[in-house]
């Protein structure tokens, strides 16, 4: 047995241990109290951050219909694969595994991540914007095996536009909101997809829905366990456009067959409703829908043919003889001449000591206004323009919509130019020479117009003086049914003398149905009225001297309305380097034929396979180009 001494000492030592351990356990209890009670809120939040994620539910943008309720722009489901660095354990490993699973070059993935490095870590970095189903399956299957809680597959509604870039400029495209747009106020937030051009931009507020969100519980490898709360997204408002799909399709088809760049705008002359609007070359807006890649963007931007430009509202072109109706309107409305006023055309005329040519070398002889329009006689309009004066010409050209913005509901419209003494003084600080009036009278000189303003010009002549505002939006469905959108007020309104205006209309009718140059647009029984214009890109002398490969062939215009009495359609077609306005008339013919067939309920004409254009360039001096069947008669300019 132990000695009493030992026993006593052992007892003391055991008591010491007893106290020590009691203290240790008290310290432990206090530590837990601090963690669990004092600091509870902090840790509770950290735990919530661990297992709760808020996922954005992207709202689809509003569907866009044509005037007959045909779907033009809709949404499809696509999947994006992203990395959320907030949940990343090892970014290197994630990048490696991801590029292996998705079969992407690793440097590219790394570059994408690098580019977004400065963004907040909770923002997903989209690696594959529009993933294939195979990619989605590969990622979701392996994400859990490899424990990649930071890889997220998101369902994103993506814009789907019609095929073949139809009306691309009109629809525009969408893209991630820029920093400037976010800073510009409104309710846009970083990462939002907004319209960047076309109606997508103009009506962005209507088209954009309200994103929803979903709070989910995830486990440590990012698998969703259950949904805590779901706020469904609200789809954007549905829009019905004034656009007529069949008319638009006819324009696109005809342009495709014609093979020229250019533009066409077709309106309802009574209201200004846009039935069709096209600009060529176009881009595919679908390429932007899920984030355009940099190479495609760079190609679009550096392309010499400038596919991103909406030529319909931004392209400024010399008008050529199409301008002559503005001179006629000014002379008639200001009572300078009456329609029967005749001028003798010997093929040239002298004003202010300088000789001006008519395009027809032998001259037209005695000619009145109707025939001067039909024949596009330069001498007649030199004479009448000189009598009318630049101020009145400018006034009436403006009233008819030339040299002005049309006010169409598309972004970035450019203004054309109708020169005037004020303009010359303001721009060059020079005085106006009367000789310049002579050039302007046949649409030469500084005259520049956009295709949409040409369409408005024809609509105004067709409706008798109301400069309608072209517009695209017809009805909006805000979720409670379709509501009409009131048409915008006309830009200006004058009442033109109907007898005198009829003379112009007669002339235009004769251009198509008589001996004029617009015969290609003729449709039996439809009284198509129009005017061709062939506008030089460069002066004859300059062209003869030019030694460049640039396409220097003339631009071809055809402007029209139909029928002559109570017109239902008006518009303008421009073929860049189309050689002659008659070729533009051939394009317009298919559009008009389609329009009237639809009106009558007849089957629509099939897409043309050959417009039989005459593209032999009479002034071409360079190496031989492929020639057409019969060379055009000797044309100098402007007919």
């Amino acid at each position, binding site marked *: 047995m132990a000695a009493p001494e030992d026993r006593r000492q052992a007892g003391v030592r055991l008591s010491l241990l007893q106290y020590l351990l009691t203290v240790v356990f008290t310290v432990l209890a206090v530590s837990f109290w601090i963690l*669990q009670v004092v600091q509870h809120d902090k840790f509770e939040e950290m735990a919530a951050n661990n297992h709760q994620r808020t996922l954005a539910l992207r709202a689809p943008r509003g569907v866009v219909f044509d005037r007959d309720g045909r779907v033009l722009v809709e949404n499809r489901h696509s999947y994006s694969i992203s990395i959320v660095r907030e949940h990343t354990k090892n970014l290197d490993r994630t990048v490696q595994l991801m590029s292996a699973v998705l079969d992407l070059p690793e440097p590219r993935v790394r570059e994408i991540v690098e580019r977004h490095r400065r963004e907040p870590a909770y923002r997903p970095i989209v690696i594959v914007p529009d993933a294939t189903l195979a990619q989605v399956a590969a990622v979701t299957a392996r994400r859990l095996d490899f424990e990649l809680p930071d890889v997220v597959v998101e369902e994103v509604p993506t814009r789907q536009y019609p095929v073949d870039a139809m009306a691309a400029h009109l629809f525009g495209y969408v893209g991630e909101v820029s920093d400037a747009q976010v800073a510009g106020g409104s309710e846009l937030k970083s990462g939002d997809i907004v319209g960047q051009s076309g109606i997508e931009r103009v009506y962005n507020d209507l088209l954009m829905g309200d994103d929803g969100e979903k709070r989910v519980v995830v486990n440590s490898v990012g698998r969703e366990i259950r949904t805590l709360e779901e706020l469904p997204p609200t789809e954007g408002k549905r829009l019905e456009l004034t656009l007529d799909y069949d008319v638009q399709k006819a324009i696109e088809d005809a342009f495709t067959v014609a093979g020229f760049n250019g533009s066409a705008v077709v309106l309802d002359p009574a209201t200004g409703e846009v039935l069709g609007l096209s600009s060529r070359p176009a881009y595919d807006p679908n390429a932007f829908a899920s984030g355009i890649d940099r190479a495609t963007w760079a190609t679009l931007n550096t392309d010499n043919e400038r596919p991103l430009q909406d030529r319909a509202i931004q392209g400024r072109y010399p008008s050529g003889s199409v301008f002559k109706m503005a001179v006629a309107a000014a002379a008639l409305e200001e009572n300078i001449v009456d329609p029967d006023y005749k001028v003798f055309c010997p093929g040239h005329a002298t004003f202010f000591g300088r000789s001006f040519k008519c395009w027809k070398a032998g001259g037209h002889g005695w000619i009145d206004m109707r025939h001067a329009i039909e024949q596009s006689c330069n001498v007649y309009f030199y004479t009448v323009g000189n009598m009318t004066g630049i101020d009145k010409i400018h006034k009436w050209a403006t009233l008819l919509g030339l040299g002005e913005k049309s006010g169409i509901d598309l972004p970035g419209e450019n203004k054309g130019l109708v020169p005037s003494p004020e303009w010359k003084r303001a721009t060059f600080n020079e005085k106006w020479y009367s000789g310049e009036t002579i050039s302007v009278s046949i649409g030469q000189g500084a005259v520049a117009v956009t295709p949409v303003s040409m369409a408005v010009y024809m609509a105004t002549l067709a409706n008798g003086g109301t400069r309608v505002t072209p517009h695209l939006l017809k009805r909006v469905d805000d979720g409670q049914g379709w509501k009409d959108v009131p048409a915008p007020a006309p830009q200006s309104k004058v009442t033109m003398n109907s007898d005198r205006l009829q003379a112009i209309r007669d002339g235009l009718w004769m251009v198509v149905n008589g001996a004029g140059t617009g015969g290609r647009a003729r449709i039996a029984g439809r009284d198509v009225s129009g005017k061709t214009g062939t506008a030089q890109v460069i002066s004859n002398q300059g062209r003869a001297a030019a030694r460049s490969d640039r396409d220097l062939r003339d631009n071809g215009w055809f402007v029209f309305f139909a029928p002559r009495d109570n017109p239902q359609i008006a518009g303008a077609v421009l073929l860049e380097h189309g050689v002659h306005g008659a070729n533009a008339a051939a394009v317009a013919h298919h559009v008009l034929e389609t329009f009237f067939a639809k009106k009558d309920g007849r089957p629509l004409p099939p897409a043309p396979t050959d417009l039989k254009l005459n593209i032999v360039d009479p002034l071409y001096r360079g190496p031989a180009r492929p020639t057409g069947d019969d060379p055009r008669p000797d044309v100098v300019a402007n007919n």
Partner: protein
Amino acid sequence: MFERRLYFHIDWALVIALLGLCALGVTMIYSATTGSGSRLFMTQIYAIVIGLGALLVTVSLDYRTFTDKSHLIYIGLCLALIYVIFLGDVQMGARRWISLGGFNLQPSEFAKAGVALVLAKFFGEQRGAPGWPTLAIGGALTLIPLALIAKEPDLGTAVTLVPVFLAVAYLAGMHMRILGILALCLVMAAPIAWKFALKDYQKSRISTFLDPTQDAKGAGYQQIQARITVGSGGLTGKGFMQGTQGQLRFLPVAHNDFIFSVLAEEQGFLGVLVALGLYLFVILRTLEAARLSKDRLGSYLVLGVLASFTFQVVYNITMSAGLAPVKGLTLPLMSYGGSSMIATLAAFGLVLNVRMRRFTN
């Protein structure tokens, strides 16, 4: 053998506390693992049953029978440990197990009681305060199995043998001065151990502990998650099977090393108090058994058994709260693990044994 009257001297309070902790452990294992369809809690219940069987054995024979044979037990253990090093089963990068047809035995768990037995006998035969030679021999007896276990490698379990030696020597009357010197040696040895003895993962665990944020997604991850788990539990907890950290696996090996964190998360501070109270009760009750022992041998044995148990309990609970470096040390009686459960219950059989036979000769 088992005399009838001994039955009345069994410390039923201690037995009930032990069973209470076992039940708490099974409940938490159930909560942490059944979500994924696992039936680990059943395995744990089998282990408890076997452990109680082992306890019956260790309580029935007089503890002096065990200490008399302690040298044989000790040699047997060392042989088993050597066997493990060369022929043991490899799991998770370490050779720790002997496979016994469907059941894996971990000899290192039994080494704790074995060392307690051999040290109790050795120090029990000495008279007076142990001097240097005694301490050296006692130390050597501890170091042999310690080194073998560390070699597996299982540094955590190996280290639990140190308190066994220190506690028995302390109770044997080792001068406090010597204790101080030993403590100093340990402190001095730390940098050397850091440089030569520790593996990289062990170093990173320790350096991470000093600053968990330096590697928040790697080694520090578990520690931060442990703290979040405990802290988010609050006063009353998130409820049975309602813990997010454990259920959603933000906390690794929740049923094993971090079972106490799961308890703290789901049962809150109140649950923690209950568990801490039970452990403290077991410890104080065992200390009392040491005090009541009729001989020094019994006191040494009880304290030796208690030392590794207490060390593990305190360390694991501290670690569960993210307040100590993460180390593979389980929580005795609660963590999932058969060998540990059986060895611990068997060891407490010895404690009951000593107390029960305090009046016998």
